C-alpha cells in the first residue's frame, strides 16, 4: 500500500505540475512585445502556411532592425496548430492568455478562423487574417487583410466577360464553404447580368480530389457548344495539380477554355510543372511580378531572409506585410498595444502595399486593395494582364446574397457593429 500511495501522489503531482508549466512560461519576459504566429506547420495545410510563418518572422526581424516598436523589441511566438481546427482555438487561447501576445497573425482556412473567433472575442485578442475568403463576417477582433469576394471573384468574372468575351461559365470548386459561397455570389451576379441558367455549370468535388477525367471531359463538352467558355475555379490546394494536368492532357488550352483560379498563386505553382497551365488565369491582389519599387525591395528582403533564390512571394504574404505594417502604425499612434486602443487607432490607417499604392483599413475591418488578373507563365510567374483602375474596398457582406445584402459593418463609434441591418436599423443582423 505504501507504494500505491507514492504512485498516487506522484501522479497527482505530475498532473498539477504539467498544468502549471504553461502558466509559468508566460510571466517571464515583459520587456518585449510578443506577436503570435498561428500557422500550421504540419498536417495538410503546412504546404501553404509554413511560408506565412517565415514571412512573419522576417517582418518581425525587419521591424526589430528598425528599432522595434514603442522602444521595445518584438518577439515572435510561433505555435503549430497542426491543421487541426479545434487546436487553432486552443493555441489562440494559449497565445493570448499564457503568452500574452499583443496580436496574432494567423489562420488560413475559414474554419480555422471560425474556430479562433470566439476565443478572440472572449479574451479580447487581435488577429490579422491574410487569406482571401468568402466574406460574411466582421468581428471586432479580426482584421481581414485578404480579399473579400468583391475584391477577387467578381472583378475576375467581369474581366472574362468583358475582355475575353466569355458567355458560358463552368464553376468548379471543392465542396466547402468558400467555393459554395463564392459560386452563389457569382451565380447571382451572372444571373443579374443576363446569363442564362443553361450557360452555367456548377460542380463540386471532395478535398484532394485527384481523378478529374470525367469532370474535365464534361467541361470540354460543355465548352464545345459554340459559345466562348471559361472555368471559374475555386478548387482548393492539392486538387489543382491533377486538375490542370488533366486539362492539358485532354487538349484543352487556355485559348480554348481559360481557367481563372482564386486559390492558385506563385507558391502553389512552385510545386507544379507549369507547362500545362500556361495562359490560365488567376485573380489576386498581388503578384510577384508586380512592377514596383516596394515589391522589388520586398522580394529582395524575402530571398535574403529565406536564403533560397528560388523561393517566391505571393498574395497572402503581401496581406501579412500590409497587416503587420498597419498594426505597427496603429500601435505607434495609440502608444500602446492594448487591444481596444489599437482597434480604434487602426481604422483609416493607410500603409504602402506592394503594388505601388496604399492600402487603408476600413471601418468594416477589411482593407482596400487593387485587383489584378494574371496569366500563368511557364516560369511559374504571373503575367499581369489586367488590373482595376483604382483600389477596391473589401465588402464584408455580399450584396448578392439575400441574407446579407442588408447588412453593413462599421466599427467606428457610435455604430460599432459588425452586422448592422440597415433595414431594421439594429445591430445583430436581425430584422
Amino acid at each position: 500500500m505504501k507504494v500505491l500511495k507514492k504512485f498516487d501522489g506522484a501522479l497527482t503531482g505530475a498532473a498539477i505540475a504539467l498544468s502549471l508549466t504553461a502558466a509559468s512560461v508566460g510571466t517571464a519576459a515583459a520587456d518585449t512585445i510578443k506577436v503570435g504566429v498561428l500557422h500550421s506547420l504540419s498536417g495538410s495545410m503546412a504546404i501553404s502556411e509554413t511560408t506565412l510563418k517565415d514571412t512573419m518572422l522576417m517582418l518581425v526581424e525587419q521591424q526589430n532592425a528598425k528599432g522595434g516598436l514603442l522602444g521595445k523589441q518584438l518577439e515572435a511566438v510561433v505555435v503549430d496548430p497542426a491543421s487541426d481546427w479545434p487546436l487553432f482555438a486552443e493555441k489562440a487561447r494559449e497565445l493570448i492568455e499564457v503568452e500574452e501576445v499583443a496580436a496574432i497573425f494567423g489562420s488560413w482556412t475559414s474554419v480555422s478562423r471560425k474556430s479562433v473567433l470566439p476565443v478572440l472575442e472572449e479574451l479580447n485578442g487581435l488577429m490579422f487574417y491574410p487569406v482571401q475568403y468568402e466574406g460574411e463576417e466582421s468581428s471586432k477582433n479580426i482584421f481581414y487583410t485578404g480579399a473579400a469576394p468583391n475584391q477577387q471573384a467578381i472583378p475576375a468574372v467581369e474581366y472574362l466577360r468583358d475582355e475575353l468575351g466569355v458567355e458560358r461559365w463552368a464553376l468548379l470548386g471543392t465542396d466547402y464553404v468558400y467555393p459554395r459561397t463564392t459560386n452563389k455570389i457569382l451565380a447571382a451576379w451572372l444571373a443579374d447580368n443576363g446569363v442564362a441558367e443553361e450557360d452555367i455549370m456548377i460542380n463540386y468535388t471532395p478535398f484532394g480530389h485527384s481523378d478529374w477525367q470525367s469532370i474535365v471531359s464534361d467541361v470540354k463538352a460543355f465548352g464545345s457548344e459554340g459559345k466562348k467558355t471559361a472555368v471559374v475555379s475555386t478548387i482548393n490546394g492539392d486538387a489543382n495539380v491533377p486538375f490542370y494536368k488533366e486539362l492539358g492532357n485532354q487538349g484543352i488550352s487556355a485559348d480554348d477554355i481559360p481557367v481563372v483560379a482564386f486559390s492558385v498563386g506563385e507558391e502553389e505553382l512552385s510545386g507544379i510543372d507549369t507547362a500545362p497551365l500556361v495562359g490560365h488565369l488567376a485573380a489576386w491582389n498581388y503578384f510577384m511580378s508586380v512592377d514596383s519599387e516596394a515589391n522589388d525591395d520586398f522580394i529582395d528582403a524575402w530571398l535574403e531572409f529565406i536564403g533560397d533564390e528560388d523561393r517566391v512571394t505571393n498574395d497572402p504574404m503581401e496581406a501579412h506585410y500590409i497587416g503587420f505594417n498597419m498594426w505597427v502604425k496603429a500601435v505607434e499612434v495609440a502608444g500602446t498595444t492594448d487591444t481596444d486602443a489599437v482597434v480604434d487607432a487602426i481604422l483609416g490607417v493607410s500603409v504602402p502595399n506592394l503594388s505601388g499604392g496604399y492600402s487603408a483599413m476600413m471601418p468594416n475591418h477589411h482593407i482596400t486593395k487593387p485587383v489584378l488578373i494574371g496569366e500563368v507563365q511557364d516560369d511559374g510567374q504571373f503575367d499581369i494582364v489586367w488590373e482595376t483602375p483604382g483600389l477596391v474596398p473589401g465588402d464584408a457582406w455580399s450584396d448578392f446574397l439575400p441574407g446579407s445584402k442588408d447588412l453593413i459593418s462599421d466599427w467606428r463609434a457610435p455604430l460599432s457593429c459588425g452586422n448592422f441591418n440597415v433595414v431594421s436599423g439594429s445591430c445583430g443582423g436581425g430584422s
Partner: protein
Amino acid sequence: MMNVRGGTLPPVFFQRLWRAVLLGLAVCFSPVQAADLPDALQSALEDLAGRDKVLRLEAVERIANSGTEESEALLQVILSGELYHWKPEDRFVRGEKDGRKFILYALEDGAELATVGRREAKKVSINNTLRGAVKSALATLDLIAPDPAKRLAGVRAQFAALAVPVERIDALLESESDTAVRDSLVTLRAMTLVSDETASGEPLMTAIAALGNSTEPGALTPLKGRFERSDDDAEKSALSSAIKAFESRQARFGMVKQVFFGLSLGSILVLAAIGLAITFGVMGVINMAHGELIMLGAYTTWAMQQLLPGQPGVALLLAIPMGFMVSASVGMVMERFAISKLYGRPLETLLLTFGFSLILQQAVRTFISARNVAVSNPSWMSGSLELHPMLSLTMNRVVIMFFCLAVFAVLWWVMQRTRFGLQLRAVTQHREMARCVGVRSRRIDTLTFGLGAGLAGLAGVALSQLGNVGPNLGQAWIVDSFLVVVFGGVGNLWGTLIGGLGIGVATKLIEPWSGAVLAKVLLLVAVILFIQRRPRGLFPPSGRSAGDN
C-alpha cells in the same frame, strides 16, 4: 500544291516562299540587315504595349498584315511571351530570363544587347484574346505549310472561328494530296457552309449530311446553331437527323470513354494498393507507413529529375528502379530493426508503422520542403492518344495503366515462378515447416517487406505523374489502399487487381449522376455492405487456417 516529303530544298525556303505568296508580297531574299524595325511594326508594338484592348488587338492584326519580313518571327516572339520593353533605352527587344536577370536580344537581328535586372526590363504581356489572335494569324500561315501535320493542325485551328471563306477552302482542297488534311478540309468546308446563313439548297444539304457523319467533335455546334435559327422544315428535319446521328455516335464513344476512365482510376488504385497487398495482405503487417513509402517513390522521381535537368523522360525511367530501391531499402530497414520484433502481434505493427509514418512525413518536410515539389511529365506522358477523333485517351493514364499491368505481371511471376516466391509463400503459409526445410525465414521476411515497400515506391513514381508530390501524398492513398486490399481479399493478389479495377469502374459509372463527392460515399457504403455479404472479401483466402478467428 506540291508535296514536300524529304524535299531537296530546305523546308525553310518553302516556308518563306509560301508565306510570302500568302501575304501577296514581293519576296525579298536579301540577308537581314541590322536595321531598325520598320515603322509599321514599331508603332504596332507601341500600341501592343499600351493598355487599350481594342488598339492592342488591332496591333496584332497590323503586325500580321504588315507584310514585313519580320512579322512572323515577331508574332512568335509575342506568342512565347518573350517581348520586353527595355525601359532605359525605350526599345522593344526579345528577352530571356536567366535566373533573376534578363538577357536582351535585338528583334531585328537577334544580336545580344545587354543583361539587365528585373527593374529595367518590362514584359509586354499578352492576354488570352491576343494570344488567340496571334495563334490564328500563325495558323492561317500554317494552312499552306509544307508539313502535312502542320497543315492538319492549321485546318483544325480554323474549326472554332470558321473564318476561312469557302472559295479559299476549295482552292486548298484542289492542291491538297494528304487524305487526313483533305478530310479535315471537307469538314471545315461543311461547317463553314452550315454556319453560313446565306447557304441553301443542295450544297447545304450535303454539308449537313457530311457533318452528321463527321467524327469531328466541333461538328455539332454549327448543326445545333443552325437548327435553332432555321425555319425551313426540310432543312430542320435534315439537321435534326444529322444531330441525332452525331449524338448517338458521341454517346457510344462516351460510354467507352467512361469505362476507360474507370479502368484508369482502377489501375491507379491497384498500383497504390499492390505493395500493401504484400506487406499487409501476405505478411499481416498493418502497415500505416505504406502511404509514406509511396511518397518516397514520388520524391525519388523528383530527385532524379533534379539530377538530370532537361531530361524528364530519362529521369522518369531511371526513377522506376531507383524508386523501387529507395522505398525497398527504407522498408527493409524498418522491417529488420523494428517490425521483425513484432511478428505474431500484428496489431502492434499498426502503432509502430504509424510512428514511422509520422517520422517519414516530417523528415520530408524538414529536409526537403513542407511545400509540394514540381515533377514534370515527359512529352510521351503528356497530351492524348487519339484512337479516333471522338475518342482520345490521355497519355499519362494509358502509360500508367500499362505500367500497372506490367508491375502486376512481374509480381505474379516473382511470386509463382521464382525460388524467392516459393520461399515467400512457404514462410507465410507455414513458418515452422518452411524453417524445417531450410528456408531462412528471417531473411525472407525482410525481403518480402522490402518487395512490398518497393512496390509502394513504384506506385509513387507513377503517382508523381498525375498529381501533387508533397509530404501529404501518402495520406491521401492509405485509406483507399487498405480498402482495395480488403475488398479483394487479404492475401490474394488477383483480388487486389480485380478489386481495384472494379472499384475504379464502379466509381466512374456512378459519378455522372451522383457527383464526385457522393460517388465516393456511395462506394464506401457499397464496399461495407459487400463485406457483409462476403466477410472475407472478393476472393477469400482458402484453406483450413483461414477459417479461424
